[in-house]
């Protein structure tokens, strides 16, 4: 079912904003998405009528807030196909989710063990493992990428050894748009008894995610890239893993009993949630995912694929443009470089035309080194973007190029 874009765009107040007196064309969805009224209103409503600290409170507001908070956990865990809401931990975002696992796994990593990442990882799914390896004298290995921006699974088979303790890989690359074949990757890794953590930051709002089908051990994502609020995210972890890992922060609801000598910890998921949780954030995150579900993730995917295909064809007509990342399986992200022009110049001029794109290394410096480029201009799409906007972007791009050469 095609998306009703006029209606949808009205759901997002910021989209009617003017920037430098031009209508805003927001193509920076890979960095963060805009928020529909449903999300904004849910947060407002919470603070107006339900706000309270959760768990252990005997009074009405506390009980209401706790119910809603736990219902959000349930909804979000079902949204990603998890089996049990105990497997969903609230964090402040994908980065914290990944760091949580890296910290809590620390005791399992011994000298000469190996952790595998890929050359396309965002710093958030690369540096935590690198630093863990440094600390534990383990080795960080990485899968290279092929010219089209995809991975070679044969290389994965070769990299996996009996010393491999974890494979950490993104579901979708934030630079290349590549959708990695996670199910197959997990199958291969599990054959070698290697658990797999998926960085789903760029996937959650764009393709169907089903952690049981993927069979991954951990799945990390942020609310703000899925039409929800900032400062909120989640980590899915298989209960068998979460039960085994030790907590990584201490205080609040994650504690069961304490004396000066000894502390016992609460069950999962609470074991990993220290301090007062962001209840408004959880409700906002739920509202964002419900919004996605209302439109239908497959409809969104189709729409964004169409935009990508359309935009890709158009930019390729422009002289000097190279598209970075042309994997068969990709979505929503269009990175490009233009011969002799610095992406920053393009971004600055496009901004003057009301067009928001991102330029730079996109927190993926190792990937830039592999590709031997210093950065790209990235247009990344969301469910509210239109072909008309792509046209504006193309016209703007040509105008910017003509000013810069």
């Amino acid at each position, binding site marked *: 079912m095609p998306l009703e874009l006029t209606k949808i765009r009205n759901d997002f107040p910021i989209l009617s904003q003017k920037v430098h007196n031009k209508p805003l064309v927001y193509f920076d969805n890979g960095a963060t998405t805009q928020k529909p009224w449903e999300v904004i209103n849910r947060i407002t409503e919470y603070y107006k009528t339900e706000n309270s600290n*959760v*768990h*252990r*409170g*005997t009074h009405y507001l*506390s*009980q209401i807030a*706790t*119910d809603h908070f*736990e219902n959000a956990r349930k909804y979000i865990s079902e949204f990603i196909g998890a089996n049990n809401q105990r497997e969903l931990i609230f964090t402040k975002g994908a980065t914290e989710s990944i760091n949580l696992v890296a910290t809590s796994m620390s005791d399992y990593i011994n000298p000469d063990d190996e952790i595998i990442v890929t050359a396309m990882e965002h710093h958030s799914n690369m540096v935590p493992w690198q630093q863990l390896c440094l600390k534990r004298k383990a080795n960080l290995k990485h899968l290279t990428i092929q010219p089209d921006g995809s991975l070679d699974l044969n290389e994965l088979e070769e990299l996996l050894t009996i010393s491999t303790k974890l494979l950490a890989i993104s579901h979708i690359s934030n630079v290349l748009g590549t959708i990695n074949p996670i199910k197959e990757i997990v199958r291969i890794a599990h054959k070698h008894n290697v658990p797999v953590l998926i960085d789903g930051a760029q996937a959650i709002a764009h393709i169907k995610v089903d952690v049981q089908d993927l069979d991954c051990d951990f799945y990390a994502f942020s609310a703000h890239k899925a039409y929800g609020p900032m400062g909120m995210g989640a980590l899915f972890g298989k209960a068998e893993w979460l039960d085994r890992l030790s907590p990584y922060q201490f205080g609040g609801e994650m504690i069961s009993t304490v004396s000066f000598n000894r502390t016992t910890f609460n069950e999962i998921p609470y074991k990993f949630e220290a301090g007062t949780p962001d209840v408004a954030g959880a409700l906002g995150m739920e509202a964002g995912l419900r919004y996605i579900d209302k439109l239908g993730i497959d409809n969104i995917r189709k729409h964004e694929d169409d935009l990508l295909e359309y935009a890709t064809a158009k930019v390729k007509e422009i002289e000097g443009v190279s598209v970075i990342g042309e994997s068969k399986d990709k979505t929503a992200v269009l990175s490009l470089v233009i011969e002799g022009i610095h992406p920053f110049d393009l971004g600055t001029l496009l901004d003057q035309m009301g067009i928001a794109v991102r330029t730079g290394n996109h927190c993926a410096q190792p990937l830039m080194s592999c590709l031997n480029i210093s950065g790209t201009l990235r247009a990344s799409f969301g469910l509210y973007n239109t072909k008309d906007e792509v046209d504006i972007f193309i016209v703007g791009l040509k105008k910017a190029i003509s000013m810069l050469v």
Partner: protein
Amino acid sequence: MTIKEKAQSIVDEFSMFDDWMDKYSYLIELGKELPLIDEKYKNETHLISGCQSRVWLHAEDAKGIIRFTADSDAVITKGIISLLIKVLSGSTPNEIVNADFNFLDEIGLKSHLSPTRANGLVSMVKQMQLYARAFKIKLNN
């Protein structure tokens, strides 16, 4: 009386009260009729977690029917567990496992039937059904 009948009579009693004070006073009274748990069972094993107050629950198999005893350090909690015992005690494991807890809704305790509620009503119900299930397995062997 069946569980259903016992539940209904509790619902009838509660329906006479129109304010919360009477309802809670009645709950507190119910607590006083609680068949008390033997002191020796007041230990970690019999403690129900998930309540702000402490609740100890014990179950005995008396020739195919279950008898519950309990205690709590809070009187409202005592009233709640007493109410549950009034309805469930004296029934077979099978009856307890299959019991319908809608009556909690009718007496206005439904809003307490969330796993995260501090009163631990859900934990109590779960624990009682767990006992019933255990006895059922024993009976079937």
